[in-house]
């Protein structure tokens, strides 16, 4: 049954993990510094766009950003990103009103289609912004997603 082999093939803690566990390597060092670390630390959308190098991004309809009009809960908001621009190298996803605007960055090689789906947390209703880097230039689109409080709130 497909599910069982997957479990068997799994590898537990990576090399880094075991080193950490043995205390040889300080967690700080092992923190795989993300390429866009300062962009992730940026608070506002403007700062994050600037840190990614995309503040002058041109609006484009060749970026497909699919997100619900209303998310019944901000903890899981399904996002689909697809770039129709040729030579797409990178797609970055921002949620403007989150504490840190930049949520994720995806880097593509020619062996992967410039299309991903994931789910993000949204603290409140906000614009979701997608930035694409293609042929060395930046493009951008956005969509508003309303987040509502579903249950009895109590």
């Amino acid at each position, binding site marked *: 049954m497909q599910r069982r082999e997957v479990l068997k093939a799994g590898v537990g803690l990576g090399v880094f993990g075991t080193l950490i566990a043995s205390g040889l390597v300080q967690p700080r060092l092992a923190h795989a510094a993300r390429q866009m670390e300062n962009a992730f630390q940026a608070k506002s959308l403007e700062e994050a766009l600037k840190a990614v190098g995309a503040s002058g991004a041109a609006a484009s309809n060749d970026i497909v950003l699919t997100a619900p009009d209303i998310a019944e809960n901000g903890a899981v908001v399904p996002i689909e990103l697809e770039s129709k621009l040729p030579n797409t190298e990178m797609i970055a996803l921002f949620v403007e009103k989150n504490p840190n605007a930049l949520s994720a960055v995806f880097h593509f090689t020619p062996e992967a289609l410039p299309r991903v789906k994931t789910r993000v947390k949204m603290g409140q209703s906000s614009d979701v912004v997608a930035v694409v880097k293609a042929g060395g230039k930046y493009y951008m689109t956005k969509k508003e997603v*309303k987040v*509502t409080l579903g249950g*009895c709130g*109590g």
Partner: protein
Amino acid sequence: MKPITLALAGVLGFATPLAWAGNADLDAKFKELVDRSFKTTGIAQKERMIQLDFQKLCSALEAGEKVDPKKIEELRQAQEQTIRWPSDGKFLGNWKEGEKIAQSGRGLTWTDNPDTVNGGGCYNCHQMDQKELSYGNIGPSLSGYGKLRGNSEEVLKYAWRQIWNSKSFNLCSSMPRFGDAGILTEQQIKDVMGYLFDPESPVNKNHK
């Protein structure tokens, strides 16, 4: 928050033999089932499972049992006696505080503690400020409540009584007895009334 006084509007349910029609054996089994299945946790005492007289009657009615209409009217009149008007004669409080109470559904659960500030949870069942998309429909829309009805003494008393104890109008109403059951304080009810009646309140300002 003063402890919850079980408004003894009627004799505690277990005592009155208002059994469901024709099955005393099942009644005994049911009472025993409830007794062994529930427990006290935090502020939620096991005694909460003891029904008040109207709770017992309305349970039977809603389950499709035949219930004597005279009994319903008799218990409704008893509920009327529980109404307490505002001690200083002022019905309207601060609508901004009222909005918080209407939005909050907290309080009185076993995961709350005695100093949790109870909310009214009005938005669970009612539309109020039309700009708030997340509202329930178990109760009627209250949008534009004051704008549409004005705030004569009669209208203020009607709204106050509905909030204090809606069972005084309709014995088996789904609306909790916010005043009589000690869910909201008098000041909190004044603030909710402010939210309903104050022209500055979004309930009225956003009403189209």
